[in-house]
């Protein structure tokens, strides 16, 4: 190699330029990424502040008690008594039906929403012109198994609804204003996006911890995370859930009631034919009436008074002058 000074100078300038560029780039990145204080105490994502209000002012606070052993028929009659499904569902509505699919058990055991009732509700919504109907729940047992074994999955699909199984990314933190418990807690929000009407569809069951599992308790299935921590204060969480969710309509299915060993049951001996279906717009009133079918009163279930105090509805269901129909 010849010591060509020109060549060497060019070589050196090249090196210098690249070295300089490396240093500038490193310095620039370091300046941008510099963090003099380190991470703070928490990395909480910003939380949603609440759910939309799905209730219809013009529908009022009403309730119908339909007697009969056949669920679809009872639902039809009850809705007719309340002015027809069209009162609640309009053309173009996007409806979410929150079922209770908590356990991977067959419809016979009545631990979950009955598939016949689910499919009738979907059919009625579609008949009323709903553009889309979704069915969802965040069950306790394995979601896929729950929707399969309860028959709800097949009922939803064959009736033309979209079945949404919970996925990690469907949950987003929500903080309910002034709530003691629902603070920055993951809630199944994704299925609610774009939805204009919300229907709660719950079976009537004994519940060992809270006293009863009815329409308000059914919203527990919208919670994600290790939600069973709320069992330490179950009356308050049910009341807060009722405040969080303002549904268009709730349906309490007491055709067959799980009167003992709830909320899982597991034996026909846990069930009692009560042949009643309650449809209403006031979830507190519907639950207050539901309590009577379990041989309890609203006063036996502290969450009813708590929900009423939070403004979720009225415990005095008689004041709603419930319409009674027989199928």
């Amino acid at each position, binding site marked *: *190699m*010849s*010591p060509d000074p020109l060549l*060497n100078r060019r*070589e*050196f300038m090249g*090196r*210098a330029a*690249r*070295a300089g560029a*490396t*240093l500038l780039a*490193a*310095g620039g*990145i*370091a300046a941008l*990424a*510099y*963090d*003099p*204080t*380190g*991470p*703070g*105490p928490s*990395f909480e994502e910003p939380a949603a502040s609440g759910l939309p209000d799905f209730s219809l002012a013009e529908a009022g606070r009403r309730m119908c008690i339909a007697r009969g052993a056949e669920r679809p028929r009872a639902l039809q009659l009850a809705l007719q008594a309340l002015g027809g499904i069209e009162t609640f569902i309009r053309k173009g509505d996007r409806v979410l039906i929150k079922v209770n699919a908590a356990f991977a058990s067959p419809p016979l055991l009545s631990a979950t929403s009955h598939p016949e009732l689910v499919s009738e509700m979907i059919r009625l919504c579609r008949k009323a012109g709903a553009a889309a109907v979704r069915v969802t729940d965040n069950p306790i047992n394995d979601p896929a198994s729950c929707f399969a074994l309860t028959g709800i999955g097949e009922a939803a699909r064959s009736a033309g609804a979209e079945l949404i199984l919970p996925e990690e*990314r469907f949950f987003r933190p929500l903080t309910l204003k002034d709530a003691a*418990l629902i603070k920055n807690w993951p809630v199944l929000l994704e299925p609610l996006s774009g939805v204009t009407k919300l229907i709660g569809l719950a079976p009537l069951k004994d519940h060992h911890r809270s006293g009863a599992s009815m329409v308000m308790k059914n919203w527990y299935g919208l919670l994600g*995370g*290790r939600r069973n*921590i*709320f069992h*330490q*204060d179950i009356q308050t969480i049910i009341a807060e859930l009722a405040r969080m969710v303002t549904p268009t309509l709730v349906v309490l299915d007491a055709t067959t009631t799980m009167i003992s060993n709830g909320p899982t049951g597991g034996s026909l001996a846990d069930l009692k034919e009560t042949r009643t279906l309650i449809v209403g717009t006031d979830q507190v009133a519907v639950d207050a009436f539901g309590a009577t079918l379990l041989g309890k009163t609203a006063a036996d279930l502290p969450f009813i008074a708590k929900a009423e105090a939070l403004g979720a509805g009225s415990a005095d269901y008689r004041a709603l002058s419930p319409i009674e129909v027989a199928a």
Partner: protein
Amino acid sequence: MRIVTARRVSQVFFFVVFIWFCVVATLGKEVWQLRGWPVNWLLELDPLVGLATLLSTRTIYAGLLWGLATLALTVLLGRVFCGWICPFGAMHQAIGYLGRRSRKLSAQLELNRFRPAQAIKYYVLAFFLAAAVLLPREWLSSGSLQIGLLDPLPLVHRSVNLILLPLADRLGVGPAPLPRFYEGAGWIAAVFLAALFLNLWIPRFYCRFVCPLGALLGVLSRWALWCVGRTEEGCTGCGLCACSCEGACTPTETIRTSECVMCLNCLDECRHDAIAYRTRPSASGEALLPDLSRRGFVVSAVSGLLAAPVLRLGGVTGPNWNAGLIRPPGALAEEDFLARCIKCGQCMRVCPTNVIHPASLEGGIEGLWTPKLNFRIGTSGCQHTCIACGHLCPTAAIRPISLDERLGRSGFAGSGPLRIGTAFVDRGRCLPWAMDKPCIVCQENCPVSPKAIFTREVFNTVRTRAPLTLKSADRSRLLLAADALETGRFGTGDYHALLPAGLRLRITANTAGTLELERALAASESPAAGSVCTIQVRLQQPYVDPNLCIGCGVCEHECPVLGRRAIRVTAENESRSRQHRMVL
């Protein structure tokens, strides 16, 4: 002064600084204690720590900015850090020198020849950097900072902190007043000693084949303005320069610029002025980077990228978390923690109670040598008025929390004190619960106010050889029909006599056939002859209030059931994780 003398002075200087910083990382105000010594400075100078945490957190934390200085030094002058500053490098060089000095020159030439295996360290670097890359969380759980396993500065800090200083303590020349223990220290020592002893086979073995920092600096030195090289004239090919070449970079052949550790032995050895440190390229040609195979690079980078997502399939950062892994107060949530911890052992070193230990596999493979608390070892649990570890952590894997935050005072009153776990009473092992022995050392030592451990009083009937039939009562003394008691056993103040009428009185003394009661019995209280009395022990059985327990482990440390403590802390309810919350 000869250039190599200057280099040796520099190496000794930085080595002494390093040892000094390790020694003074002792909580206290003396000159030889922590005071304000910048004990993390050498770790911060390590640009690999800065770069890897940049990849894993997208930030450069505080002092890690010092890495820029080393980076600039390397980009301008070559791997000066390796040859002049790195304390681990100085150890390797010293041992390597001892290993080769008595050998023949031809043997030394052979020892210091370039080996293609020197490329391995670049693959190591690629693997670790790829593992550190934080991908968007919605894609994959990633960003595992494993660089500290082999990065020389964390490695040497860990080794001196957890091996050499504790050995010095035992010899009476260490900084700790009581000998310190470190769980699993043997594995850390094995890596450290293996790295050092390998120099006896090949000098600077670690630097040449393993060191990922050397690899990073090697890559950065490719455009160094000054570099070592052969001059155009004078070289006789004697090979003396290569005999003492620390980097095995073949100075008189095509010089391997990235391998040169700037020892400058070649300059010193050459009798013909044929080697120079200058801006011109070497007359015999340069290879700026080692021969890396694309295949090898892809394999290491892809395996690195997959490492964290694959290891996390085990769920150890998710549902399968280990409740036995208790992190120091201020430690980030596990995935954020793993993105920052470099396993340097500074928290374990500074912990005044010796309660922080290097984890083995409690936190999975990724958690190897990260800090965990062991309440059986040390002088007490984790003192709830201490925040030393977070303030020493060079990467904020343990945040530098304030005392107010730890104790849940002033601005932090709303969130309450920081919890690192919850204590659970093992009722099958607890003396008052299972053995009818009064104890409650745990309750007594619980440092929070009001105490998280409270007790409920019970009176349990004591086993006696036979029913205690009374012969008579005389004022405060009960006489038994037969000798049935162990003399003195029931006079401790914890035992009570339960008389047939339901009257319970404390026993103040006893002989084989008598019980002395706390007061004289009234005539109406006197038991009938032939009636049976029982002895009861008053027990205070401990309970934990989970809303008050901070998991400090003082109770576990103090529990007299020494083998497997009867009250133990697990990470349940630790503040750092929402998912680990146990109570409302």
